[in-house]
């Protein structure tokens, strides 16, 4: 899944889903759909955290004048 939103937004959606499920006033069909969505968000968030090495890019200020 590719989601252009920021990590915060994804994490926020995940937390909102958890909160809804914990409140418990969700019909079963919706609960299962929400759960699937939550799983997906969790995986996306985790994948964003992965990466073993710091990437460094150097710019020079003159680039700005182009």
């Amino acid at each position, binding site marked *: 899944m590719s989601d252009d939103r*920021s*990590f*915060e937004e994804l*994490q926020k959606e*995940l*937390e909102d*889903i*958890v909160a809804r*499920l*914990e409140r*418990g006033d*969700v019909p*079963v069909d919706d*609960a*299962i759909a*929400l*759960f699937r969505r*939550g*799983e997906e968000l*969790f995986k996306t*968030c*985790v994948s*964003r*955290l*992965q*990466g*073993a*090495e*710091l*990437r*460094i*890019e*150097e*710019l*020079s*200020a*003159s*680039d*700005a*004048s182009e």
Partner: protein
Amino acid sequence: MAKVEPILYGDRKVFTVSSFNRGVASYLGRLPAVWVEGEVTELRRNEAWATVFLTLKDPKTGATLKVTIGRRTFDRLELALEEGETVHVSGRAELYELKGELGLRATTIERIGLGGHLLALERLKRQLAAEGLFAQARKRSLPRLPRAVGILTGADAAARGDLVATIGARFPAAKVVICEARVQGKGAPATIVAALATLAAHPEVDVVVLARGGGSFEDLLPFSDEAVVRAVAACAVPVVSAVGHEQDTPLCDLAADARAATPTAAGALVVPDLDELSASLERSHRRLVLSVRNLLERDSERLARLGERLRAAPHLLLERRRAGLDHTGARLQTLSPLATLDRGYAIVRAGAVAIRDASAVQVADRLEIELATGELGARVEDVRS
């Protein structure tokens, strides 16, 4: 010195250029001596000349003023002035008569001292504060996980190294985009502004750190420059100021969205700690799984109870029916002729017909007599009707 006298053309008084210039020059010569502040540009000193020329520039508006000063006077000041330095010049307005050019004839030049800088800084600080540039309400929150961290730094390796090391240690998957700028001396503000714009324009940079190690008061002045402070406040992404040491407060600190005392502290502000973040994600995930399981269990319990009630329903119905039947059976029982027999009555039949009337039979007819228990076969001996 020729007098300033007009030539008369009838009623019209006309001055020659020279006399006009001389007149203005003598008028200007009556003005008092003043101090003028500006940036030194176009400084020209030549051993062969008796006069040193320079131009003072107002950094805000670009307005310029020509300044002349005697070479010996200038040399005695031992200023070793460089272009771009801010100075105070004391002198009088003067007109260069041959060209009609206004200038300032200087008697002395002073490099703006610490006191002067402090006053200028204080003035700028008050002005920018009045504009609301430092207001708490303007401060943006930093992204929890920026796609890339922009780092604006000088050639100064220590601040940059500390910052990059902290970011790498806390969050290995991070990306940093580094842009070097001249961070001190003449021209620094312009390159800082340009570098800030370059970083903010990078598609992944979500936050910028100004990383500049400690330095003298003068060294850090570019970070209090009005153009830099305004650029920090107007930057498209949040800015963390990590300039100088704890005790320094360059104005960019006040305009930035967050301030860090050291590059290490700045690193901790701009990227999350991977372990903490992973733990919080895992917590959310556990809660997700648990909550949906609870929900489903609760629902399946409810379902099971419904199922039990459903299965029990026909059974109950039968029970109820059976009770009803038993009652009816009992009632039926009381009406049964057999119960009557129990009380000592008998049923007499001739063939299949129950006899109710004695005249229905004749002597010697065969009769069947049914008792409560067993039957008797009998013959009629006499009929009394």
